[in-house]
């Protein structure tokens, strides 16, 4: 279950990315330093740490690429 939606196409070479605070799941408390689960609607999931929260509603994250888990549906389709 993800905490926050991200687009994994927007990573830089250090794993940094930005998304919007409004894409957090209900009840998720975003704060700087928090480790959360990010994911997309394909079902891909990854651990990430919140690095900053913008007043404009953005949230910056650094992705732990080693924890990336592709969606079950895609894994089965391509098995």
């Amino acid at each position, binding site marked *: 279950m993800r905490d926050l939606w991200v*687009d994994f196409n927007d*990573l830089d070479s250090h794993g940094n990315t*930005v998304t*919007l605070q409004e894409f957090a799941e209900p009840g998720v408390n975003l704060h700087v330093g928090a480790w959360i689960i990010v994911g997309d609607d*394909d079902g891909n999931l990854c651990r990430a740490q919140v690095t900053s929260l913008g007043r*404009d509603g953005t949230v910056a994250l650094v992705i732990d*690429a080693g924890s990336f888990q592709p969606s079950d549906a895609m*894994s089965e389709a*391509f098995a």
Partner: protein
Amino acid sequence: MMLHSTRGGLHVPIWRRVPKRWAALTNWTPRLPDDALVIRGGTLLPSDLQRSVLKAIKELRRPALSIFSADVLIPADLVESAGSRLIHTSVCLSTAGRLRKAGFVLEQTFEPPHYSVWLSETNWHDQLSTFRSAFDVPVPVRTLGRVQADPGRPSK
């Protein structure tokens, strides 16, 4: 006169090499040729595309979608170029020409091979299905050495 050279085992026409050398000297970004490969990670779900555009509007002040593209003909070369930025295990393939033919403008943004596909500020919602139809169906990244984007066939 030698019209082709070999770079990494690939034949690169001389008319493609000269702009790259000029770009290295001037910071000028050459226009992608129409047959340049394009990759976007994932399966292009409408809900993912919509959220990505909303994020771009907030971050870049313009509606846009991220892709990876480079003047290469072999998908595995583009995957290698994207490196750790391409985290997906499945991707959709297209070409710069297919996206242009669908009415989109590509611009290199952030670190290459990252490009932004700019969408209309007034009707970007309507353009999402056009964007999707400019790509082939998703394929596993591990098979990309054996797959080549169709330069003109709609995906569905």
